[in-house]
């Protein structure tokens, strides 16, 4: 079972899906296949620079293996690759909706 993170504007499943990665206000964490969601604030948003790198470090420390987001910057991209985190391109209005699409295998893998 791997842990999945979804970028989000708020801490809940019905919060708006956020397309930015490093500057996403929250990550919604869930164990693949489970319904239990946990919203955690992204420490990257406070960063002056290198928000993406900080966010990757945070996800690694949380044990995240898969990420669903919109856009990933160049530094974050290389860090995600080095950290062996799979990245999927999400689309949709709410986080719950994006997770549903992911569970149905409808999201495209970016990294």
């Amino acid at each position, binding site marked *: 079972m791997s842990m999945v993170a979804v970028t989000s504007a708020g801490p809940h499943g019905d919060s708006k899906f956020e397309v930015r990665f490093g500057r996403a206000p929250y990550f919604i964490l869930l164990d693949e296949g489970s319904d239990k969601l946990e919203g955690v604030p992204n420490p990257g948003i406070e960063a002056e620079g*290198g928000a993406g*790198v900080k966010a990757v470090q945070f996800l*690694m420390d949380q044990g995240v293996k898969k990420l669903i987001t919109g856009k990933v910057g160049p530094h974050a991209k290389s860090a995600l690759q080095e950290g062996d985190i799979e990245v999927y391109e999400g689309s949709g209005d709410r986080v719950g909706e994006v997770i549903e699409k992911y569970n149905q295998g409808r999201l495209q893998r970016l990294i």
Partner: protein
Amino acid sequence: MKVAVASGKGGTGKTTVAVNLANLIKEDYQVYLLDCDVEEPNAHLFLKPSFEKSYPHTVPVPQVNQDNCDYCGRCSEVCAFNALAILKKKILFYEHMCHSCGSCIYFCPREAMVEVPREIGLMEVGFYRGMGFVHGILNIGEAMAPPLIKEVKKYQDRAQVTVIDVPPGTSCPVVASLKNIDFCLIVTEATPFGLNDMDLLVQLLKELKVPYGVVLNRADLGDDGVEKFCKREKIPLLLKLPFDREIARLNAEGVSLIEEITWVREAFKDLWSGMKELMKFHG
């Protein structure tokens, strides 16, 4: 006496004013011209100096000795710029984000890091008809200009008068270029953009407690916003240059304007005496 030429907005005529001012001042004083616009240095195109010295400029960055590292993550924790990430047994270092603060090396509990130099650009020092000339050329793709600007600024106390060509904007490179100066000449244009960016620069200069005056370039194109602003804020308007085809043509050829056009020479003489008065400089 150290005089900076800045603008806020790009393309207002900073370098044209800096070069011609330096050319005029050098008739009476020993002068150095520093081109601090290291991302796009261009003053040398107008002065064609002969360079006597060139050397690479480096900044210190950390290098990890993997044998001593136990991936504790302390270096990444203390890095204020997120230039280091520790992913299990991998250390990622993003050199363009490193500000050379040395915290990672200082705080590493296993002495697994050492400081090594990293080249960020090239320095060139030379002369043009007795005038000292210094500029820095930042390597392409490099994110941080201030360390190289600081190296250029090391030459600012070598002559009676130093003229500093400042990069556009009001961010870190501009602040680095304006350090320890006596006066700032603001070159702007009679447009809303010229006014907006000049306003930002004036706020910065107030913060830095540097006295300043204005050159309004292409004064007859645009509106009266800058003039009204100067009046309201009691900012000395030292020179108004009209839009002039002859100036444009000679400048494009890289020719010294004060030597070719008599009225321009007189205008720059007036500008320099106005500046001297404001700086109380009678050397």
